[in-house]
């Protein structure tokens, strides 16, 4: 059963590709205003889980509910309220940064588009490259465009896959502050995957540790570290990754 306050409720989620089980019977909740870290080695099932939450991959079994609605039956209404950013997904390369944001704004039916685009461009410090064609952006600038696209629609749930992977430490720090500020002011809920353990510890209220498609640990960073008897989250990660 979903907790009364959960905005996302995942129950017995399974995804099988032929004989390979990518996600194996996972259940979890995301609470309003919570930042939930999704941690695990490559192939643990993090990306497949995020893709199922975005409705682009269909679960083999189990259910996903957001805001009390089932994703399979209320797909349009749910996807209107969530967004994502992934280092591994690009935006149309031949369009400028601003054109890409305009297309996204229209796709989500936003009003006062210019004002919202100006606002997000300013907040993510993108003024200097807002008229640049996307293919000419550096990887850090592309990541910021992906984040701008995600924040532009003012989602209630944000799914972030390695959001600071290609950013320099200064910008990465600004993005983390931005994310925390958004959460504080809007009550945004975030599901966050990263390989940066320090970032994960600093950002997440709770962490879910995935291994071979299963949840092997769940709790705060301190709880997980204590449970595995390691010095920090990085050591837990290394220990579990080597066991795989």
């Amino acid at each position, binding site marked *: 059963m979903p907790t009364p306050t959960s905005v996302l409720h995942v129950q017995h989620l399974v*995804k099988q*590709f032929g004989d390979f089980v990518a996600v194996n019977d996972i259940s979890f909740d995301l609470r309003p205003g919570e930042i939930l870290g999704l941690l695990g080695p490559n192939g643990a099932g993090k990306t*497949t889980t995020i*893709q199922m939450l*975005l*409705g*682009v*991959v*269909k679960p083999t079994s189990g259910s996903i509910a957001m805001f009390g609605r089932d994703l399979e039956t209320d*797909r*349009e*209404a749910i*996807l*209107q309220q969530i967004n*994502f950013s*992934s280092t591994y*997904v*690009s*935006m*149309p*390369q*031949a*369009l400028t940064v601003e*054109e890409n944001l*305009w*297309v*996204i*704004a*229209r*796709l*989500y*039916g936003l009003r006062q588009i210019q004002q919202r685009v100006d606002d997000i461009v300013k907040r993510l410090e993108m003024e200097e490259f807002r008229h640049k064609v996307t293919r000419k952006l550096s990887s850090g600038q592309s990541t910021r465009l992906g984040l701008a*696209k995600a924040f532009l629609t003012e989602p209630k749930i944000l799914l972030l896959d390695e959001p600071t992977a290609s950013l320099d430490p200064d910008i990465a720090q600004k993005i983390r502050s931005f994310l925390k500020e958004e959460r504080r002011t809007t009550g945004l809920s975030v599901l966050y995957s990263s390989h940066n353990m320090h970032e994960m510890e600093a950002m997440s209220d709770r962490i879910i540790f995935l291994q071979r498609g299963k949840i092997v640990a769940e709790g705060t960073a301190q709880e997980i570290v204590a449970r595995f008897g390691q010095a920090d989250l990085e050591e837990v990660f290394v220990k579990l990754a080597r066991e795989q």
Partner: protein
Amino acid sequence: MKFHRIYALMARHLYLYRRSLPRMMEIVYWPLLDLAIWGFITVYLMKFEGQIPGVVTFFLGALILWDVLFRAQQGVTIAFLEELWARNLMNLFASPLKPSEFLAATMVMSILKVIAVSVVMAGCAGLFYSYNIFVIGLWLIPFVVNLVMTGWIIGVLTTALIMRFGQEAEVLAWSMVFLFQPISCVFYPIEVLPSWLQAIAWMNPAAHVFEGMRAVLSATVSPLVHLAWATSLNMVCLSLVVALFHWMFEFCRDRGLLVRIGE
């Protein structure tokens, strides 16, 4: 179906055309090249005007109408390929966009493409060969509408196959339509086909359109029967391929192909 989402996709493609010379050339270069080659063939064939009455009208008219079908198909398929090349499918399908809205946007884009290409071709045919496509009269309107629908059918079918089989199937975007050309009887009457192939050709809406066009030009019989067949077949086939596209979309979601298609 929400108009703002269809408009968003149209805007995305119009932005592309605004600064892309190769894409603009697609509207002008290939149609002009087609027109030059077939125009010269027609000029040559005019020597035999006595034996084949209305040869210019038949050939240039057929060419322009075939291009309507071809561009309508390309409009749908290339719009999908643009998203595939840009690895933008996940951004689109993880948004509230519905597959039907995606298809609607590609169809509207194909209409814009058809209009642009037709204006170029009809204008140049008039300028260089003194040929007036409107000699077909008001019949031109239902003919063009039906050819656009046939183009959509082939375009949606091709798109569904590319979605399923990935970039390896990309070549279908340019080749699939030519599979239909022999049985569309664009430049020759249907009677020239062997009887078994005629039976297949009669199931192709485009064959009825081109037969109808020849009927109008030779002023022998009314094209109404052909138009009725073309429209009915188009409605049935379009419904079938749109259903196939939706089924394929779900199939790709199930197999995880939608997120891997551009990789």
